[in-house]
């Protein structure tokens, strides 16, 4: 999941004209991005190490701090936080304070796989990512870990899976989405479109 090809296919629907989706793997290319999407593959620790090894980490942080809109999907969302139970000791970007926890309950199956609903928490400014997306829309999830930000105000939408967790977070120009918009049919594509048209 977090298939970069699927994200590219979805972006291709809304790109065009002055906007174009490009896969980058080097800091030099990243510098020219207006908006950044980070889909997730692998584990928290591996991804954090990979960003560091490719010298993307600093540029990524700098771009986000300059105000470039950023969207982290699934693991890409997790990386916004400081740390994760998935990889103790590994450091995230820390742009959102808090940690990533594992689902632990005998009552639920892990990974959380399938279509679940998202419920907008409040009409914050960053709810614009949910523009024209009906509250309670079903989207596709596929994950074993979820984010727990220290600041409740960054939570834009919550989802109930035995416990209520943050399925969308946002802070200024930073967005994190737990589910896979690129796999969530109309509702997911609308969310991606909202981000691309920010």
């Amino acid at each position: 999941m977090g298939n970069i090809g699927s994200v590219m296919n979805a972006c291709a629907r809304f790109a065009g004209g002055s906007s174009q989706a490009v896969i980058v793997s080097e800091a030099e290319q990243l510098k020219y991005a207006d908006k950044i999407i980070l889909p997730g593959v692998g584990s928290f620790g591996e991804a954090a190490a990979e960003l560091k090894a490719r010298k993307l980490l600093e540029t990524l942080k700098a771009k986000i701090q300059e105000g470039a809109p950023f969207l982290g999907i699934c693991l890409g969302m997790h990386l916004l936080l400081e740390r994760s139970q998935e990889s103790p000791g590994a450091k995230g970007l820390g742009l959102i304070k808090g940690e990533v926890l594992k689902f632990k309950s005998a009552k639920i199956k892990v990974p959380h796989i399938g279509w679940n609903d998202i419920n907008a928490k409040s009409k914050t400014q960053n709810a614009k990512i949910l523009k024209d997306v009906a509250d309670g829309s079903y989207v596709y999830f596929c994950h074993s870990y979820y984010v727990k930000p220290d600041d409740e105000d960054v939570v834009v939408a919550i989802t109930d899976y035995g416990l209520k967790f943050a399925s969308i977070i946002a802070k200024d120009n930073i967005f994190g989405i737990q589910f896979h918009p690129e796999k969530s049919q109309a509702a997911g594509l609308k969310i991606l479109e909202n981000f691309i048209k920010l």
Partner: protein
Amino acid sequence: MLTKRIIPCLDVKDGRVVKGVKFEDLKDAGDPVENAVYYDKAGADELVFLDITASSDKRDIILDVVKRVAESIFMPFTVGGGVRNIDDIRALLNAGADKVSINTAAVKNPGLIKETSQRFGSQCIVVAIDAKLIPNTQYPIHNTKHWEVYVNGGRTSTGIDVIDWVKKAEGLGAGEVLLTSMDCDGTKDGYDTELTRAVSRAVNIAVIASGGAGRLEHFYEVLADAGADAALAASLFHYREFSVKEVKDYLIKRGASIRI
């Protein structure tokens, strides 16, 4: 709340959907992409493509199908059939499959589950199990009947107990189980609810029930009563005996948690 999934399955041979049926809504009944788009619009929650291409030198055809499907639909899909090793899995994922199901190769080499789930993530490794009841046999350890794992498309018995195998597969990192009852497959008499219940209770990963769907109540039985997380059907959807919408409307009416 997490919803139960309805999953149409398409058999693909040499890049074409087999048993293609000409319907007004399809221009080319054998085109996998057109079928995928049809089911996407019809409200399916996910799709499974089973590659039944016999000769191994035609294997690459499925990669092209996967690539074209991934460009056309924005919903999750699984690809299985003839997956032998980590290279096959990587190629399918790179082509755009969200998940890959492994069957015979996993039984022959259980380490493949561990290796690939660690490399690509548990969420994309589906272990497919073909189960057959061994009558008049109890399996005392699990206090259930004894179902045996079959491989090579159901042709070869392994002697392995299904409950033992599913627990082992979970421990090795499988993200989901695609459980086919060989006894019920093709009968249209309903899913094997006893098998599904036994497997669902044995593991804490999602179970996709397969084999036997013929009537609407079969979906309810296996999802609501037997504890399956998803129900797969092939010919029932393929021959338009019921639409995905009819199945979902029925399940909603009976109070099941279903995505509209």
